[in-house]
């Protein structure tokens, strides 16, 4: 019964060692998680630069609404006739900036990069559960990016209904130029993007639950993995809902159905659509949209946990609390979407419910913020660039999170809704915080990705300019919002009460330009270090996690011999009694008799007995 099958099995087993690769399978259609991580990262960086340039363009318009910049016409043609950005194009810039940053940079660029890189590495797996799905995930993402960028090359311009693409504006192709072909391309791009995220997310969850190495039980996983795991769950449950929303919107636009449309007059003509409900779209959109902001911030929180602990040379404060707070955020993220809709005529009782659930999210978030600070407290801190960015992440998370309490409050939100206060809030708490978490991750795991170190001095320059720049850009916006300045407005000079803010816009725009230029330092550092950086050692940060036990040179299957076994949690830094200030997860307790504590053995009586005997022989007393 069994004779026919041996050869196939043997071939499969050996494939880790004899894997012949061509340029195409190694660099392009790679199924190796390390290469796919780099592909995600570099695509994400390209998208980030693109989206950043868009933001500088609309900042120029906001700062100098009456000035002409002939150079803009050279590059943008009819969208900047006479050197001034047109209102329609302004809306496109805002829309695509948001879409690219939220989805392509902070979702795919962040999760895609670090989940792919770290899940197999830190869990001790040869690769993802399904390398093929992983590859498809990247290529769907890539095509989504291409289509989104391509929408800049169609006659009517890219989508311009805002990144939330509320109907009816987005659903009526004749409404504004940006609702034409550009909007269709937006929808197609987003559909492909969702496919990519679901393929990736399924793989992450499955790998974490099924492919951990020996000894790696869930409570020995680094917090990075916990964060990626819960992020993937949130994505898996929320992205398909956006598919439904997008499909119905597509039918409204292209087929003529009336899911979201009703009683519209466009250009003097009455549209045939009747009986639809635009609020329905908002419900479906925000059921994804709110979890989406946690998809963006949770991986950044995970990376920050790891980096802060490693570079404080201290165990993370409250490991279990960190995990439970992530779980809390995951669960709560699904029952708060209504807080985006307080002004839609929602029943105030329902608004009250959403308000309470929203404010409860502050609890797990605060737990995380305090635990970071407690980890830093009296640590032996090494201010590496990664550490600077991680601390910056915590700073933004706190200063942006505090205003979340204001906005989550329905009574306040009705005043602040759709003002610059909201812009300030989410750019700090999910924009800047997440991008800082991502940059921290890039600086920290660069040696693992490319086998070389990034330049530290350029790293510090990048950090300080970006950190100060981001605060100068977003902090003044709070005051504009409190004064009632609405977001997405083209020119402040058209409204008397907004005119006094033009001078503030000048400051903001200059800060944005300088912070934008600071990214050149990063780009130079990133790309030149790939070839010219200092060669990395195997464990440059003296870190405990498994990825630093792999050779610097990437090999297929990650570990040359057996996959290492894990004996302890990943945060044994500066453990009293040990001669080194870190103990890798692969070090068994039998080699660290002088630092073991009774709770390390998790109730294993035989081990405790041996330890006690050793303690007696070596006159060791444990004071806990």
């Amino acid at each position, binding site marked *: *019964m*069994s004779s*026919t*099958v*041996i050869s*196939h*099995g043997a071939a*499969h*087993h050996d494939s880790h060692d004899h894997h012949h690769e061509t340029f195409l399978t190694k660099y392009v259609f790679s199924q190796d998680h390390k290469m796919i991580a780099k592909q995600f990262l570099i695509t994400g960086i390209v998208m980030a630069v693109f989206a950043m340039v868009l933001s500088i363009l609309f900042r120029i318009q906001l700062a100098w609404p009456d000035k002409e910049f002939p150079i803009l016409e050279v590059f943008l043609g009819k969208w900047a006739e006479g050197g001034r950005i047109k209102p329609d194009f302004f809306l496109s810039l805002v829309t695509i900036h948001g879409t690219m940053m939220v989805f392509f940079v902070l979702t795919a660029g962040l999760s895609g990069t670090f989940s792919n890189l770290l899940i197999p590495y830190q869990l001790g797996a*040869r690769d993802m*559960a*399904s390398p093929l*799905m992983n590859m498809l995930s990247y290529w769907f993402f890539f095509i989504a990016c291409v289509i989104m960028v391509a929408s800049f090359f169609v006659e009517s311009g890219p989508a311009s209904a805002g990144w939330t693409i509320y109907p009816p504006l987005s659903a009526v192709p004749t409404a504004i130029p940006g609702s034409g072909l550009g909007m269709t391309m937006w929808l197609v791009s987003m559909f492909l993007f969702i496919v990519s995220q*679901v393929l990736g*997310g*399924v*793989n992450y*969850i*499955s*790998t974490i*639950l*099924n*492919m951990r190495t020996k000894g790696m039980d869930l409570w020995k996983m680094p917090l990075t993995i916990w964060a990626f795991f819960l992020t993937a769950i949130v994505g*898996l*449950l*929320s*992205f*398909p*809902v956006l*598919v*439904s*929303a997008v*499909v*119905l919107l597509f*039918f409204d636009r292209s*087929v*003529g*159905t*009336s*899911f979201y449309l009703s009683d519209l007059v466009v250009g003097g003509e009455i549209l*045939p*659509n*009747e*009986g*639809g*409900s635009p609020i*329905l779209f908002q*419900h*479906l959109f925000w*059921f994804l949209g709110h979890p989406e902001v946690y998809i963006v911030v949770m991986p950044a929180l995970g990376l920050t946990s790891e980096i802060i602990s490693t570079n404080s040379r201290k165990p993370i404060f409250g490991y279990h609390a960190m995990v439970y707070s992530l779980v809390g955020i995951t669960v709560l993220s699904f029952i708060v979407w209504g807080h985006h809709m307080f002004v839609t005529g929602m029943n105030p009782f329902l608004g009250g419910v959403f308000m309470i659930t929203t404010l409860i999210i502050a609890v797990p978030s605060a737990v995380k913020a305090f635990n970071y600070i407690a980890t830093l407290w009296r640590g032996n801190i090494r201010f590496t660039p990664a550490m600077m960015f991680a601390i910056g992440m915590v700073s933004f998370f706190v200063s942006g999170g505090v205003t979340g309490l204001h906005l989550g409050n329905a009574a306040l939100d009705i005043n602040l809704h759709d003002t610059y206060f909201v812009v300030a809030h989410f750019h700090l708490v999910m924009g800047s915080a997440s991008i800082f978490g991502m940059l921290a991750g890039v600086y920290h795991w660069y040696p693992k990705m490319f086998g070389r170190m990034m330049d530290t001095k350029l790293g510090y320059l990048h950090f300080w300019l970006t950190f100060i720049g981001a605060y100068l850009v977003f902090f003044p916006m709070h005051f504009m919002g409190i004064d009632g300045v609405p977001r997405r407005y083209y020119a402040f000079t058209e409204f008397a009460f907004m005119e006094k803010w033009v001078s503030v816009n000048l400051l903001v725009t200059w800060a944005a330009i300088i912070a934008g230029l600071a990214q050149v330092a990063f780009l130079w550092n990133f790309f030149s270090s790939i070839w010219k950086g200092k060669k990395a050692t195997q464990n440059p940060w003296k870190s405990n996690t498994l990825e630093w036990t792999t050779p610097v040179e990437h090999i297929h299957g990650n570990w040359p011999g057996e996959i290492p076994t894990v004996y302890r949690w990943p945060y044994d830094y500066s453990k009293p009694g040990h001669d080194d200030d870190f103990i890798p997860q692969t070090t068994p307790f039998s080699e660290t008799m002088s630092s073991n504590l009774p709770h390390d053995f998790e109730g294993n009586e035989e081990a405790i007995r041996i330890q006690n005997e050793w303690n007696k022989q070596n006159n060791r007393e444990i004071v806990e």
Partner: protein
Amino acid sequence: MVDTEYMTEELVQSRKAKKFNLVLGMIGMFMMFAALSSGFIVYTASGVDKGIKTLLPNTFIYSTIVIVLSSLTLHLAYQAAKLEQLKKQRVLLLFTIILGIAFFALQLHSWSVFTDRGIYFVNNNASQSFLFVFTGMHLAHIIAGLIVLVRCYIGAAKPIPFPDNKFRMNLATIFWHFLDVLWIYIYVFLLLNQ
């Protein structure tokens, strides 16, 4: 018994993970239909002139019977695959594919029943448009299911090694049963709202 000889530890682990992938994928698909359901409920509750306002056609009963039958034949095909009865497996798979196509045709037929009654996709009562969306999105998944079944048939015809065939059949069976249950969910949901 055979499996233990053939499967290395890593292969066992990776197969377990792949099967788990499928389960997760099905959760994702279910969420999509859950979103459509809640969209339907919210929309239909928005006015007395909303709602399906028609009786579901009898073809839905027939298509339900057909897809349940196809699940049965596929189950038997999987049993045959486990016993290495390749020929029986192929025949039963062929039956399943034919039943799957019949299901597809019946669903399309119910669309024409709707249009005969004057219920079109482009409709100011979007509750009725939802009928087409539910069945259409399900049919899109049925196409994927049929591709999976054809791939199983090719595997059995070649034939590929026994454990691979069994594993492939296992995944296909889970997925097809899911599509079956999904249709029954949609049907019951629509029945309750007609």
